[in-house]
């Protein structure tokens, strides 16, 4: 009965309740939209980073992350084939591919610059063609998982073409290298002597990271091993079917390695992608601040409505109390009213939020390149069930919170004064 009274009271001042509800709806839509937008940004950044740079998990010789930069060749993996076949057995694993990374000098004859080279397995670490690379999401949808780099011009690596290399966009520009230019790579081998090979530029690529494109070049693993005079590799990059399996696979690997007394380090993508973690942290803070602002606006709005409601209905509250309603009942009456406002606003907000997100998502939002990258992209905000649910619960909760003081005030009224009140 008290609930009935509360609900009827919400519809007593239609215009006023409508304004309050609109405020809540607007707030909810904002939270759902921004949340869905950020979620998409996170996903794109994350998957982009995993695809282009880190894979889901990387395995190195113990100590590599600490001292590998100074003496990279002291931490090489000798038994990479054995490791690869071990890791491949896990059902969550899509593929495992070895890498070796080194630095050296790159020369066209006229110009010489330093570079960082990656020896990769062309079978797995293919380059995307330009049209697929523009829209990573489309690329994942079409099942292109091996996409690492996107070709600007030319062709990707080919395991049958040992001396074909591809250069990052910035690197190519700095030495004015074209497709089919000959370039000489000069580096130190693992045992410290100097070695050089002549190669041909097969293509020029870009990734989502500009700093990467400015210094990196890629070549078939075999070529790199030949150049460095080694049979070993430096790291194993593991790509999974689903990003969510990362922690589980990491733990399984840790266990397997321990059992076999392998001394390896395992790093997951989030440990490697510092930039991603920082960006997500920053965005999450923005989101939190936005939610606080929306929350304050909604609280004030409901608080105001409920306070007016109490003021207008003083003699009605007196009557309710005279008829024998305890003060708890009076509190409930107004709490229900606030919660009702929150629930109606929240429900409408969730529905409208879905519609808005869906509509905007169809069109897409053109995004500038993220910091450190040179490719813009199209964001398609997502409808995230978790956000919908939390927004709905949140607005009900806020409804209750903001009605609390007015409700308390109403319950403190002195009956005789309330009845006398005109």
């Amino acid at each position, binding site marked *: *009965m*008290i609930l*009935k*009274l509360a609900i*009827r*009271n919400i*519809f*007593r001042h239609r215009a006023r309740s409508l304004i309050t509800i609109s405020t809540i709806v607007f707030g909810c839509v904002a939270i759902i939209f921004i949340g869905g937008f950020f979620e998409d940004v996170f996903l794109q950044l994350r998957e982009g980073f995993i695809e282009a740079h880190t894979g889901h998990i990387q395995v190195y010789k113990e100590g590599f992350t600490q001292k590998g930069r100074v003496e990279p060749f002291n931490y090489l993996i000798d038994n990479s084939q054995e490791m690869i076949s071990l890791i491949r057995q896990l059902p969550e694993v899509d593929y495992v591919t070895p890498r070796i990374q080194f630095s050296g000098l790159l020369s066209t004859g006229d110009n010489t610059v330093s570079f960082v080279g990656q020896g990769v397995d062309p079978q797995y670490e293919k380059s995307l063609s330009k049209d697929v690379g523009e829209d990573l999401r489309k690329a994942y949808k079409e099942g292109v998982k091996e996409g690492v780099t996107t070709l600007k011009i030319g062709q990707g690596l080919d395991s049958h073409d040992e001396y074909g290399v591809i250069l990052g966009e910035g690197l190519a520009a700095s030495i004015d290298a074209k497709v089919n230019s000959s370039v000489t790579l000069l580096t130190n081998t693992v045992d410290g002597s100097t070695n050089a090979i002549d190669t041909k530029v097969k293509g020029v690529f870009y990734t989502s990271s500009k700093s990467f494109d400015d210094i990196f070049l890629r070549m078939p693993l075999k070529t790199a091993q030949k150049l460095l005079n080694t049979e070993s590799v430096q790291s194993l990059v593991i790509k999974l079917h689903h990003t969510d399996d990362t922690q589980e696979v990491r733990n399984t690997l840790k266990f397997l390695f321990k059992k076999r007394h392998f001394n390896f380090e395992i790093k997951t993508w989030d440990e490697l992608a510092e930039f991603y973690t920082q960006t997500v942290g920053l965005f999450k803070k923005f989101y939190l601040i936005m939610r606080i602002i929306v929350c304050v606006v909604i609280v004030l709005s409901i608080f105001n409505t409920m306070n007016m409601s109490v003021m207008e209905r003083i*003699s*009605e509250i*007196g*009557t309710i*109390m*005279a*008829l*024998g*309603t*305890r*003060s*708890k009942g009076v509190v409930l009456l107004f709490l229900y009213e606030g919660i009702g406002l929150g629930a109606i606003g929240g429900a409408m907000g969730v529905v409208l939020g879905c519609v808005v997100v869906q509509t905007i998502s169809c069109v897409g939002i053109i995004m500038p390149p993220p910091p450190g990258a040179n490719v813009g992209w199209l964001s398609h905000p997502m409808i995230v069930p978790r956000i919908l649910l939390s927004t709905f619960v949140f607005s009900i909760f806020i409804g209750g919170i903001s009605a609390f003081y007015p409700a308390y005030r109403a319950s403190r009224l002195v*009956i*005789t004064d309330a*009845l006398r009140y005109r």
Partner: protein
Amino acid sequence: MALVEVKDIFKNYFLNKTSLEVLKGINLKINQGEFLVISGPSGSGKTTLLNIMGCMDKPSSGEVFIDGQKTINMTSDELADVRAQKIGFVFQNFNLFPVLSVIENVEYSLLFKPWSSIEKRKKAQEALSMVGLSEFARHKPLELSGGQQQRVAIARAIVREPLFVLADEPTANLDHKTGEGIIALMKKRNQQHKTTFIFSTHDQKIIDQADRVVKIWDGEIQL
């Protein structure tokens, strides 16, 4: 045993340091089945006395017994329960809930009864037909005339089968003829069901209808 008994009631109001003595030692016993009027000029303390008997206010000193129960030491929740179980209220301004329908207004009065909702609905319908407003059950109070609204209020007061009904100037907002109709309705109920009524008024014609008249003058009962 008296239904309502007040002993040596004093009531003071404090207004910016000056104390106003509104009730000055009231003693009164009301028995089951009485139809009693409290009369007196404006400001004499009628409302104050009714509020105390209705467990909505506490005296500054003195004792109040409802159905033999001492109420002055009760907590506000206990007093609310006494009101809910034992007292029916009729107000000068009708005080119906505008958002509830007529029958829901009557049902609200049964909120604290341990009855099923079907039973409550039935009781409410009976009470409405007793005041002659069955066909207005689904209307909103503000669609009714003042007299009809006060009849709804009477239905709301009697539906809970209280020990007694308190009515502070129930006719003050009605014209004479309508007011008399209201009093006649209460009288009928009093005669048929032995329901005790305690009400206040200035109206001499209504005072004449009462079985017993208690006159208050400046906070004291005039004999």
